[in-house]
Every structure is written in structure tokens, then in C-alpha cells.
């Protein structure tokens, strides 16, 4: 009798009715990230699932397995742990649609334009703007990247997401949950005119993005910044271009983690030159990687306590007035004995600043063109510390014979003219000039009739 029961039980287990657990687990369930309980339940191992906010990148929020707190690739599980403890399936965007590894209802979102890596998510990816059917998010990131990296045609600009642009120039509002990037970051950062997702309440962002506020401190907006080359990051998942590596300056603990790609020559990096930075190939023990001085320009701060992302930095101001809530300083490292050592291979100059008490002090800043310097090591790229006529002390610059030489140098282009044998910064309004090319306003005016100031031409004031 017992044997018969056993046989029947075995037969039932073999050929009996079974619920298709795997099919259920493969199903995509939408969820509401704003709900107190998104209703995702638990996975087949009994672990609570999370509601992944795919809507931040024009997808649909969906339930997925939970992973650890650290965003990282999980090659053993053929998955990627993204911010928000969401485990997404790994996919290969170079494969055909059916072979990417994503199940029904999912598409492969590329997470690195320099490698065949992606994650499966509920969205329709794009390669060109026409792929973006949403009239609001009508621009493919591929277009944005091609406009940004005009010298580079080697990256893989497919399986990307659609975004909304011209939120500032077009004076259009971003979709709920998004913010207009150029309206929230300092003008000097040359932020593109696009809408970016807001960080969630815990400072989490979708893949290829990092939470600006979480990394750079409370003085920065809680928005998700695309992980472009040279941008700060926490993990590889944050980087749209390259991997997230420490600059090792002077150690991993004190360095910055930046999105970078390996290189062996400068021209492998210069193709990424844009208004987001000029890149050089810094050779190190591991070979070399692309870096930009812009990575060390410091993040915004109100006080020293805001400078958390970069060890050893304090809040420095360009003016002594720091009382207004809107006054923003920059987290920089103070000069040591009046000088600055190169940081992770990037030359830094000791520049005058004010501390949060309004007292004059000095801090290290990348030795860009025209910045005062003491040695060649204070200058970035191929610039040297040289005297510029009429502009003491010595400054980071390059040699030249004509204005064209200065315009051809990527470090001085657009901001210098050839003053004798070195490139000099463009002249502000009211300064004597000989040609239009010497003026920031690109206008060298002859003296007005009856003027008492002299007989020389002067630069016109820049148009506001």
C-alpha cells in the first residue's frame, strides 16, 4: 500500500499538474515606486523584491530581485546590481533583439558606450531620435553623445534611452521626477540643456547616472548626472563611458573615483574632448587611463562640512562675502607651503581664495590656461609656466608665433591670443588692443573722437 502511494506520488510529481514557477518568475510586473508597499512580494527564494524605477529613463517601473547595497556587476548570476538594490539581468546590446538575453517585455539598455554591456529593463531603447516616440523625451542619448563627442565616432551609440532636451532654452518643463540640469548646476560646468532624473529619497539613480548630491555633498542638487568620461562615480554602473576607477592620488582612500577608459596615447583620449573637459592619457603602473582637469575643479559647498566626497578638501570662496545662502564655494585642497603638487598626474596651481570666514587664503586648482603658476608641474597638459607680457606672475601657457597657434592648441583655443611668443588670455573691456582677436568681446575699438584717455584702441566690453 505504501509502495503504491509512493508510486502515485512519484507519478504525480513527474507528470502531474505543476504551476509554471519559472514562467511566473520571468513575468514582468509593474509596480508603483511611490506606493508605501509597491506590492512586489518575494522572489522564489523568499527574498523581498524591489520596485525598480525604470520610469526615470522612460520605462515602466517593474518588480525585480533585490541585491546588495553596492551597485556592481554580478557575473556569476549574469546580472547587474544597480542602485536601489535592484538586480537587473545582464544583456549584450551587440546581439540581435532576440539574443540579447532579455525576456519578453524587456529591452537591453546599454550601460557603457565603450563596451558591450547592458541591463534588461522595461523600456524601448533608441539609436536615433526617430526611435523616440515620446513627444517629450524625443532625443536619443546617442544624439546627445554625438553632439558632445564630436571628434569621436568609435563609441557604440545604440540601445540607449530617450531624454528631454532644451528644457532651459526652450523654457519647457521637465517631466515629473526630472529636473533641468543647466538650471541646477553652476554655469561654469557647461551643463548640457537636458532634463535629468531626480535622485530618489535615498540618493539613488538609474544605471549610467550618479546622484550629484549624494556624491558631491548637500550643497549640490539631488539630480542624477550621466556618468560621462571624467565624471565622478561610485561604481561601474554609474558610468555611461568607461569604468569607475580610483585615480589613486595618493592612494585609493584619498583619491577620487572617476569614469575613465584605458589608453596608451593622448590621441585615444583627446577624441573625447568637449565642453566637459580636455582629456589626457595618464600613464601609470596599470598602463594608462584618460583623465581631465575638470574632474578636480571641486564641487559646490557652503561650508567645510559639505566637502565630503574628496578627502582633504575644504570649502573655498572666490569672494570674501559668504553670508548669503546662495553664495557657493568650491571644495578644494588647500595649498601646502604656497604650492601644489600635481594631483593624479594633473598639474594644480595655488590660487587665491577666501575661507568661509572671509579671510584670504589659497587653494589648489587645476593649472588651466592663464592660471598663475610657480613651476611647469602646476600646469595641465602640455602647457608650461611662462611669463606673459604685462600679466605677472608667470602663468600656464604655450608658445606661439601667431594667433592661429593659440587657436589651434586645445588648451588655449578660444581664450587666448599670441602675445609675442606666448599665448595670453583674451583682454577684457577697456584694455588697449591692436586686433579684434585680442579681445574677449572680439571687438577692438579705436579711441573715440575727443577722448581724453589716449590714442590707442581698446577692447569693447563683452556683450552681456
Amino acid at each position, binding site marked *: 500500500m505504501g509502495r503504491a502511494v509512493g508510486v502515485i506520488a512519484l507519478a504525480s510529481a513527474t507528470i502531474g499538474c*505543476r*504551476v509554471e514557477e519559472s514562467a511566473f518568475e520571468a513575468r514582468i510586473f509593474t509596480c508603483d515606486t511611490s506606493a508605501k508597499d509597491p*506590492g512586489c512580494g518575494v522572489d522564489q527564494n523568499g527574498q523581498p523584491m524591489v520596485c525598480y524605477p525604470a520610469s526615470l529613463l522612460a520605462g515602466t517601473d517593474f518588480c525585480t530581485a533585490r541585491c546588495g547595497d553596492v551597485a556592481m556587476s554580478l557575473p556569476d548570476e549574469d546580472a547587474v546590481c544597480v542602485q536601489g538594490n535592484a538586480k537587473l539581468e545582464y544583456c549584450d546590446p551587440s546581439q540581435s533583439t532576440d539574443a540579447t538575453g532579455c525576456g519578453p517585455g524587456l529591452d537591453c539598455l546599454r550601460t557603457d558606450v565603450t563596451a558591450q554591456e547592458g541591463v534588461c529593463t522595461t523600456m524601448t531603447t533608441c539609436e536615433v531620435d526617430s526611435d523616440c516616440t515620446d513627444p517629450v523625451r524625443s532625443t536619443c542619448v546617442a544624439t546627445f553623445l554625438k553632439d558632445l563627442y564630436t571628434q569621436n565616432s568609435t563609441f557604440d551609440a545604440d540601445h540607449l534611452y530617450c531624454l528631454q532636451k532644451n528644457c532651459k532654452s526652450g523654457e519647457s518643463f521637465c517631466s515629473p521626477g526630472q529636473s533641468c540640469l543647466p538650471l541646477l548646476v553652476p554655469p561654469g560646468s557647461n551643463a548640457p540643456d537636458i532634463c535629468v532624473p531626480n535622485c530618489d529619497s535615498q540618493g539613488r539613480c538609474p544605471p549610467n547616472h550618479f546622484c550629484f548630491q549624494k556624491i558631491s555633498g548637500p550643497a549640490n542638487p539631488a539630480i542624477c548626472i550621466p556618468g560621462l568620461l571624467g565624471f565622478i562615480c561610485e561604481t561601474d554602473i554609474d558610468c555611461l563611458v568607461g569604468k569607475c576607477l580610483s585615480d589613486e592620488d595618493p592612494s585609493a582612500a584619498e583619491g577620487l573615483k572617476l569614469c575613465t577608459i584605458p589608453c596608451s596615447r593622448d590621441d585615444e583620449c583627446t577624441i573625447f574632448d568637449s565642453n566637459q573637459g580636455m582629456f589626457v592619457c595618464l600613464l601609470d603602473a596599470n598602463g594608462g587611463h584618460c583623465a581631465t582637469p575638470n574632474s578636480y575643479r571641486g564641487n559646490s559647498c557652503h561650508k567645510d562640512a559639505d566637502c565630503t566626497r574628496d578627502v582633504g578638501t575644504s570649502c573655498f570662496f572666490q569672494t570674501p562675502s559668504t553670508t548669503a545662502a546662495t553664495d557657493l564655494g568650491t571644495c578644494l585642497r588647500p595649498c601646502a607651503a604656497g604650492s601644489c603638487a600635481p594631483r593624479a598626474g594633473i598639474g594644480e596651481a595655488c590660487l587665491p581664495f577666501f575661507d568661509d570666514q572671509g579671510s584670504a587664503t589659497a587653494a589648489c586648482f587645476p593649472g588651466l590656461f592663464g592660471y598663475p603658476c610657480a613651476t611647469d608641474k602646476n600646469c595641465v597638459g602640455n602647457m608650461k609656466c611662462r611669463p606673459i607680457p604685462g600679466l605677472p606672475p608667470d602663468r600656464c601657457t604655450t608658445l606661439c608665433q601667431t594667433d592661429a597657434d593659440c587657436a589651434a592648441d586645445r588648451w588655449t583655443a578660444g581664450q587666448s591670443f599670441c602675445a609675442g611668443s606666448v599665448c595670453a588670455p583674451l583682454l577684457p573691456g577697456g584694455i588697449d588692443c591692436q586686433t579684434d582677436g585680442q579681445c574677449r568681446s572680439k571687438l577692438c575699438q579705436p579711441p573715440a573722437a575727443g577722448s581724453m584717455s589716449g590714442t590707442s584702441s581698446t577692447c569693447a566690453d563683452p556683450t552681456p
Partner: protein
Amino acid sequence: MSTARDRAIACAFAATLGLAVSPRPARAGEKMAVLVLGSSEKDAELADNLTEVLIAYVAQHGGFEIAGKEEFRARLGVENERRAQDCLDDISCLGRAGVSLGVRRIVAGSVGTRGKQFRFNLNLDNVEDGKVESRVFRLVEGGVEDLIKAVQEASGELFRPHVDPGKIQVASQPDGARVSIDNAYLGVTPLISGTLLAGKHNVRVEADGHFPWASRVEVLPGQELQIRLNPDNLPRRRTWPPYAAYGSAALALASFAAGGFLGELSQLQPNGTTRQLAMDDLDQKRHFALAANISFGAGVVFGAVSLYYFIRYRDDIFGRAERYDDTP
């Protein structure tokens, strides 16, 4: 003395004998004596001619060796027809004549006329045991030809083997079983049938709540065959196996139907506005699948039980096929 009628009779007998007494191969056989006497003196010639007809018929169809009628008449030791008739009616007298003739059986008879009718009788006497084995009597209207034909037919009947009828007596435990013989209902046990021809007969005995008994029995001539059926011959037919077999079959079908229904339910896609609700629905479908498997398992068990009952108690459920048992 002879009349015109007598002459006509003589001519008819002569013609009959010319046809009947045809040469035939002699064969070894029983010796028999034949004699027909007239009822009166005027029928003596008719009787004599009839004797010739009989002798010829018996010799041809029976294969017997016939003793001469004159010799037989001489052995009777009588002078006239009247005395001879008395001897023929006396078996002891006839026995003596037969013994002296060396025959075992004698065909003896008489013939007479009554108006326009002939009447005759024939006996087949067994002189050894003194019994009359067979006898015929005929009253014939018509001519002599009709008489001859009737005599010949009577001769065939006279020698036709006589079979005694038999009977069948049927008793059963319990009493009251219905008895049919050769598909004819006779009554209930205990029962004695009427006379039956000797030979094989189909006997069937049925009792309420019992399997029937049937047999093909042979009844010998004069036999009263006794059939006594005990409870083993009429085993009680159980009433519960049909309920058990059909009941378990119904349960098996119901189980399979329920299993199929639950199985279909378990295969539906889990529904729910959220994954949690869909999981709850999935959990319910797991229960459906489990219940379906249990139902299928129960269906298999009930089906096996049903099959067992149908096989083991097939006679109780479907009835026993007609079979002929040995006579107890």
C-alpha cells in the same frame, strides 16, 4: 368356391409379390416365422395372400430368414383356421411352435372383412420371453391395393425399434427454483417432468438471487433421471459488487473530472494588479495543482479498485454466461 372378388385379390397380391419379391442377396440373420390367418373361413385365402405379402416385405426390408408358412402352420398342429387362431393368441402355444421352428420372434396376425372394410392386426411376438414386442391394428377402407399398402406400412411400424420414454426428476436446495427443459418452462422444484423422449435434453434451473444452473443431459429409454442441485450448483449471486464496482468507477470519473478542472485552473495565468497579488493568486493555483494531483491520484486508485471489482466479481455484476455443467 372362389368368387370374383377373391380372384381380383389374388391377382393384386400376385402383382404385388411380383414387384416385392425381387431377388435379393441372401444374408445371415435372424430366422423369423410369419403367419396371417383369416378371421373366418371365407377370409382364409385373403390371409394366405397377405402372409405372402408380409413374408416378402419382411424378408426384403428386415433381412430376416423366413420359415415356410406351411411348415409354420404344420408346427402349430391345428387343422383349421379357428384352431390356429387360438394358438396364435396363446403365447405358450406360439412358443412351442417357434421353438420347434428354430425362430426367436414370430409375426402373427389375422385379417378379416367387414362390409367394404378390411381389418387386420399384426403382432411381433418374442417367443423367448413370451412378450409381445410390438403390435399394430388397422382398419382399411378401399380396395385390395389399399390393404396391401396398409399392411406394408404396418409391417414397417411393427419392426420399428421401440423406445421407452424417460423422465427427469429435479430437486434443488433451496426449493422453488424454476425448471425449463428444452426452453419450455415446466414448474418449480421439486419437479418430475412428464415423459420425455429418450435422448439429450437441455435443462435449466433458475432461482432468484442465485446463478442459474444449466446442463445438457441424456435420458435413457425408460430412465427417470434424477437431478439434485445443491447450493454449490446454484451459488448465491452477490448484490454489492455492482454497487462497489460502478460506485468506484463513478468516483474515479469524478476524481479525474475534478482533477482536470482543478488542473485547468492551476494552469491559468496568475492575475493581480501587483506582483504580490499575483503571487497570492499563484499560491492559490499551487493549491489547485496539488488538489488536481490528489484528484488524479484518487482517480487512479478508484479506477484500479473499480477494475478489480469488475474483474473479480464480473459474474455478480454482468451475470454468468450460459454454461452447461455436469449433471450432479
